[in-house]
Each structure stands twice: as structure tokens, then as C-alpha cells.
């Protein structure tokens, strides 16, 4: 594996040095030539890449192939108004399908299975990523997307669906609907592959117990590829990384120095085979640890432990990445409130909810309730446009939102992840 990774890394560095001005400049700044990278032992010589670098080169600045080679783009939330855009060549899509297909095999599902994809389809990588992977494996794919849970349950029963791919919180919601519809004894579900948001071992066991299935944890992020970067097998002893395509590192989030196996730090990926938008040492900001011990299942790939949070302030709400700075940018752009806000994230009936409290200053409020209601609606729409999630907006009196001396407190997350 190391030899393969080294060979691919050398090729990758050559590719980005010659095709992407951004990387060439960055390497030149630290006096690096492509020839200085002879194998994965040299990886630490290379500079890191962050989400901000993607934003600064919006939309296609980091693409390493002519646009004619790009067959698809996906996008996720940026830290401010601009989205993070990624492009895939035909070959990238093939690799992605294969990685997702591997995760589905890890969940012991195959071509004889009927799999519902209940991630959102669209710019979000979840829906199409899972879809292509399941199709690639030869399974029968039911592209449900999200939204109509009763219909999903009806088809789950009628079609004899055996596998499902969705966010874990949505699956718990689905389980409740199955219960409500009195269909728990009629489902044929064997396994679920869940991801796109943080969840706990407790929640995984809860899903398994409720639905009498195996629940697997799939990991991925659009910048690196999408779902399928890593997934756990039936022993649930960590997530197997597709490390022939994605070279993992764990670094100390502050010093950025590599840490030993078993030590928690920030996960960093280099996309060894990616053509469209290859990334060198991309900081995922996800905190986890790594092990290289052989798994009970026999797989020798490196494994990630359960994720322990983020090294930045990004929130994942209903599978959608949300940065508090996006809310602030939307409020400032609207210009009809103060930019003081508080996000309250909660999980009610297994579904995430987001309330945004906004201070009403003298110059913005009205003596008429209907005007205030209009304002509330306007703010909600602006935030929804910015983050792609429906929010509840609550107007509060001025100066009631806490301001701390340093970074103000913008988020109260009442969800329990432990």
C-alpha cells in the first residue's frame, strides 16, 4: 500500500504543480520542486490546503484539468456567501462509485439487494454519490431523496427494500414513521449506511435495535470526494479508509505537526488519484484518530476512530454544513437588523432544528405587528438562501444576546452527541 501511495503521490504532486497555478505558487514559496517529493514520507514538506483556499479560487481555480474534462460539479457551503465548488472528471466519478460500492459491500449488501437512497439529491454529494455507488455494485436503486417519509416507508414495505443510505437522524425519524404506520414487522431491511452528520455509537446501537438491522458509519466530504472516503465494517471498530485513493494524516490542530496512531487530531487528506480538483494535504477540520492495525474483518486499510468534533465552528444540521459566519453575512447583506445573532440548534424527534435569534434595534422595528412579522419572514428567507436550510427566526430585544470580550457566542447546540 505504501509503495502504491508513494507512486500516486509523486504523480499527484507533478500534476498539480504543472496544472494548477495555486499549487505551483504555494510550492515555490516554500522552495519545493515536484522532484523533492519522492514518497509519502515527504508529505510533511508540502503545504496544507483549506476550505478558504477553495473559496479564494472560486469557482474553478483549483481544477487541474480543462473544463471540457469535467463531467459534473457539486458544491457545499463555504464559510461565507460563496459555495465550495468541486469538479469531477469521468474517471473521478468511476473512482467515487467504486469507493461507495466498497462501503456498501462492507455493510454486506450487494447486487441482490434493493437500496433506497434517502439523502438529498442535487449539489449535495450525498444523494448522487450514494446512488452511483449502489448502482455500480449492481444493486437495485430506489432514488427516494428526502421529504416524503410515508411514501418512503410504503415503498420500503412494498418493494422489500433491504438496504438504505441516509443521515442517521433521518433514519431514526423513518423508524418512528414505520412504527406509526404499524409496519415494523413488514420491513425486510438488513442494513443501513448512514453518514453526512455526526452521530454517536449510542445512536448507532439505537438504530440497530429499533430496526433490527446493522447500521454502518460512512464518512466523506465533498472537497475530498463525497461519501465513501471511509466506512466501518460489521465489526464497527473504526472506519476503513479507501487509502489507495485518499492518503490520510492526523495532525495536531494547533501546531499542524503529525501525531502518532491513536492520538486525536485533525484529519488531513491528499487525494491521490483525483483528476478534477486534486487536493494536497486538505485540512478537513474533523477531529479523530487513526490506527493501522489489521481489523478483525481481515482488511488491512487504515481505520479512523469515531469523530470527536470539529476544530472550527462548522455545524452539521440535517446533513448540511453551516458556518455561523454565513448567518452573519446574510444579516449584514439584508441590512435590516443588527448583525448580532444567536443560533440555537436542537434535535426534536430525531430531526435537527435551527432557531436564529436576532436583535431588534429601535431603527428596525415597527409599531405594527404585521411589519414585524414581515421582517421576521424576510430574515428567515435571507438565512435560508444563505445556508439552504429552513430556520425559525425569533426577534429579541437589543443587547440580550451575549457578547463576550473575544469571539462572541453565536451558537448553542443542544444536541447530544455523546
Amino acid at each position, binding site marked *: 500500500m505504501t509503495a502504491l501511495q508513494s507512486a500516486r503521490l509523486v504523480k499527484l504532486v507533478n500534476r498539480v504543480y504543472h496544472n494548477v497555478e495555486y499549487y505551483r505558487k504555494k510550492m515555490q514559496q516554500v522552495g519545493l520542486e515536484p522532484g523533492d517529493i519522492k514518497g509519502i514520507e515527504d508529505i510533511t514538506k508540502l503545504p496544507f490546503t483549506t476550505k478558504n483556499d477553495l473559496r479564494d479560487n472560486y469557482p474553478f481555480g483549483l481544477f487541474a484539468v480543462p473544463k471540457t474534462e469535467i463531467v459534473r460539479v457539486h458544491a457545499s457551503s463555504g464559510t461565507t456567501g460563496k459555495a465550495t465548488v468541486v469538479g469531477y472528471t469521468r474517471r473521478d466519478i468511476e473512482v467515487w462509485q467504486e469507493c461507495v460500492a466498497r462501503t456498501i459491500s462492507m455493510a454486506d449488501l450487494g447486487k441482490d439487494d434493493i437500496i433506497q437512497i434517502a439523502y438529498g439529491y442535487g449539489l449535495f454529494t450525498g444523494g448522487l454519490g450514494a446512488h452511483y455507488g449502489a448502482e455500480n455494485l449492481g444493486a437495485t436503486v430506489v432514488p427516494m431523496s428526502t421529504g416524503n417519509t410515508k411514501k418512503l416507508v410504503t415503498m420500503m414495505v412494498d418493494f422489500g427494500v433491504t438496504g438504505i443510505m441516509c443521515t442517521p437522524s433521518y433514519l431514526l425519524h423513518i423508524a418512528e414513521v414505520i412504527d406509526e404506520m404499524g409496519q415494523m414487522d413488514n420491513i425486510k431491511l438488513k442494513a443501513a449506511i448512514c453518514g453526512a452528520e455526526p452521530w454517536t455509537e449510542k445512536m448507532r446501537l439505537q438504530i440497530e435495535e429499533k430496526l433490527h438491522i446493522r447500521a454502518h458509519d460512512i464518512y466523506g466530504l465533498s472537497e475530498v470526494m463525497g461519501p465513501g472516503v471511509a466506512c466501518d465494517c460489521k465489526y464497527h471498530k473504526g472506519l476503513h479508509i479507501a487509502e489507495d485513493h485518499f492518503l490520510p494524516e492526523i495532525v495536531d490542530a494547533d501546531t499542524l505537526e503529525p501525531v502518532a496512531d491513536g492520538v486525536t487530531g485533525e484529519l488531513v487528506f491528499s487525494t491521490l488519484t483525483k483528476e478534477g480538483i486534486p487536493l494536497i494535504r486538505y485540512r478537513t477540520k474533523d477531529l479523530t484518530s487513526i490506527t493501522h492495525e489489521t481489523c478483525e474483518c481481515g482488511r488491512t486499510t487504515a481505520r479512523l476512530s469515531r469523530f470527536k468534533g470539529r476544530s472550527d465552528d462548522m455545524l452539521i444540521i440535517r446533513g448540511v454544513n453551516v458556518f455561523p459566519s454565513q448567518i452573519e453575512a446574510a444579516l449584514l447583506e439584508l441590512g435590516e437588523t443588527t448583525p448580532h445573532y444567536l443560533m440555537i440548534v436542537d434535535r426534536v424527534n430525531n430531526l435537527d432544528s435551527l432557531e436564529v435569534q436576532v436583535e431588534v434595534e429601535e431603527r428596525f*422595528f415597527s*409599531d405594527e*405587528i404585521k411589519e*414585524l412579522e414581515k421582517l421576521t419572514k424576510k430574515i428567515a428567507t435571507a438565512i435560508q438562501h444563505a445556508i439552504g436550510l429552513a430556520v425559525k427566526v425569533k426577534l429579541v430585544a437589543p443587547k440580550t444576546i451575549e457578547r463576550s470580550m473575544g469571539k462572541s457566542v453565536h451558537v448553542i447546540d443542544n444536541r447530544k452527541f455523546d
Partner: protein
Amino acid sequence: MFVKQLTVFLENKVGSLQEITDILRENNINVFSISLADTSEYGLLRMIVSNPELGREQLCNAGISARLTDVIAVRLENRVGTLAELFNVIAGADIGIEYMYAMATSKTGAMILKTNNQEKTIAALQAARIHILDENTMYHLQ
């Protein structure tokens, strides 16, 4: 012909009204009329007071959202039919009422109105010889 209404944004929580009335008392401001419009999340307090400018200033200094709004104060005699006369005039002029509330001191009864066309309302009321209270009278009511 308008009078100033002191409008205050209120969060739904215990003590928010008290905070406001304390400030008004400390500044020797008399409240002639008060109306609270409530929603599930917040309220709007609308008041006719003896010194609206000072009231607004002092409330804002205390970090409370307060502003002045022009409203119409219509004097009402204490007899049957005065409200009917008032609303006949307003509806007859095709004017919609945004909100209204009553005011009564020991000597004067009045209706405070905000409509969707304030200038037209004044003209219609004047034409119908309905008594509108002006600011000078209003803030010195007994």
C-alpha cells in the same frame, strides 16, 4: 394633528413591563393609555404618555427598543353611538384601521387610532366635525 405614541418592543419574559414602567416613573412621565399587542414570541407596547420624547430617550438609554409613532387621538363623548359615528366616517372614506385602543382620564375619553392612510383620516374626521385631540391638549390631560 397627530399625537406621538411611544412604541416599545417587548420580549415575552417576566419583568419586561416592570422595567419600562419603572423608567417612566423615575422620569416623572405619566401614562394616559396603554395597549399591549402580543404574539407568541414578543409583544409591542403602545402608550400615550405625558412626555413621549423624554420617554423614548430614557428607554433607549436603558437599552430598550422604543420609538415614536404618529397616531390620531379622537375625543369621544360619554354617550351612546359615538363609536358608531366614528367608524362610519372612517369606513365611509374607505380607510382601514391598523390598530386602535381606548383612552380614558377622569375627564376625557378618547380612541387612539392608526390607519392605513393617516392624512386622509384626519381630513375625513375634520369634515365630519369629529373632535381630534392635538399634542398640546393631549400631553397635559388631567
